[in-house]
């Protein structure tokens, strides 16, 4: 999330996030050697949009607290559960705790959903470009598109350094997705390892499409430049940058 964004495009509006609530961990599964998905059952289920995020807050016995925001990876639905994929940052106070201590059955304090800008409502064409862990909110969009039978609306391009860093590797591939490896590729991969270029985008861009770019700041700038070179007006591009969020 966000220090500043520009007011381009219609301003979204979303209700203030609800109060802190308890969520029970109902599942934990590894996505990569350094990323796990945590499935949480909310005590007070809240509808959310693809692209939004939730906060997790940890409280120590002396009252010390730490909180971070994590994008929702699951498609909106009425299960009352959400999935958050968390990259384990070596110095990350919260991500280290989630990876090393949290078990199924634990209760975590959460708040959300949050974010009224970087959201896709499932009805308009969208080009999604994610770098590394930046794929998480885009995965919620892809899953929504597939579940509603509107995969034709989205194109997802994911850039990772090497195969073992690809999130959702079993689920993500499909006719609407493109995987870019920048350092090393799987055996006999048709594309050489290298950074994203306009040639990696799927065909001519739909002029009605909105661009959703998510990743590190450097990746976000590079991906934005690729979209612009491919002809997408800057006001159609929405960006979410991941800083070190521990």
């Amino acid at each position, binding site marked *: 999330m966000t220090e500043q964004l*520009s007011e381009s495009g219609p301003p979204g509006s979303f209700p203030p996030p609800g109060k802190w609530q308890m969520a029970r961990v109902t599942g934990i599964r590894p996505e990569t050697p350094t990323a796990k998905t945590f499935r949480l059952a909310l005590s007070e289920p809240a509808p959310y949009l693809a692209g939004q995020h939730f906060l997790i807050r940890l*409280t120590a016995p002396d009252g010390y607290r*730490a909180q971070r925001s994590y994008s929702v990876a699951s498609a909106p639905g009425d299960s009352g559960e959400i999935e958050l994929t968390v990259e384990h940052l070596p110095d990350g106070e919260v991500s280290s705790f989630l990876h090393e201590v949290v078990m199924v059955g634990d*209760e975590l304090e959460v708040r959300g959903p949050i974010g009224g800008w970087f959201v896709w409502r499932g009805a308009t064409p969208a080009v999604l470009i994610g770098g590394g862990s930046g794929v998480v909110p885009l995965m919620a969009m892809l899953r929504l598109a597939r579940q509603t039978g509107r995969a034709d609306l989205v194109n997802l391009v994911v850039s990772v350094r090497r195969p073992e860093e690809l999130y959702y590797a079993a689920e993500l591939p499909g006719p609407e997705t493109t995987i870019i490896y920048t350092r090393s590729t799987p055996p006999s991969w048709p594309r050489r390892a290298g950074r994203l270029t306009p040639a990696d985008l799927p065909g001519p861009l739909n002029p009605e499409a909105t661009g959703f770019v998510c990743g590190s*700041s450097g990746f976000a700038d590079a991906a934005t430049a690729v979209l612009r070179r491919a002809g997408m007006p800057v006001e159609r591009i929405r960006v979410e940058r991941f*800083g070190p*969020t521990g």
Partner: protein
Amino acid sequence: MVFTRGFRGRRPRDPRLPPGQYDVGTDWPVLTAEATPTLSTANWSFNIEGLVEQPVKWAWDEIRALPGSDYAGDIHCVTTWSKLGVSFHGVSVDTLLAAARPMPSASFVLATSHTGYTTNLPLADVTGGKAWVVWDFEGRPLAKEHGGPARLLVPHLYFWKSAKWVSGLRLLDHDEPGFWERNGYHDRGDPWLEQRYQGD
């Protein structure tokens, strides 16, 4: 208060950190939701308008010729990072407002950016030595991804109030929510009160 099983937290905690914040160290995360604009100093300007006796507009060379002012201290982003012990150089908003002479009815400002971004603040939060327009960070020109050529700096509030690529202040007699504020974020944003979202 609900405690988290097994969580003890990192110690010691720097007393300069507001609740829920962590020290980002030497990094300075870039968090904007759009492409970074390339704005030349020749195209940059800053104006004060609205409820003032004398609307004023400064070009780049003009604002830099004003008496300078420094900030040394901490900054806090609503995404929970804080950056401690930083320094900025620019001009105090007090100096700028003195030229424009706010009317007695002015009680809020809407800060605007060259990108179209807006954010709202009580006038009292940008007066009395609490706010600056800055162009140097740690003695060097402010990088464009951090709002260069110049940004607003209101370090006692969450950093989305410190509009990047700032273009001016509009003085108002009412509070008019800016971009993030219309999107659910708090109208004031005091990090020590954890005023992150509307209703906090």
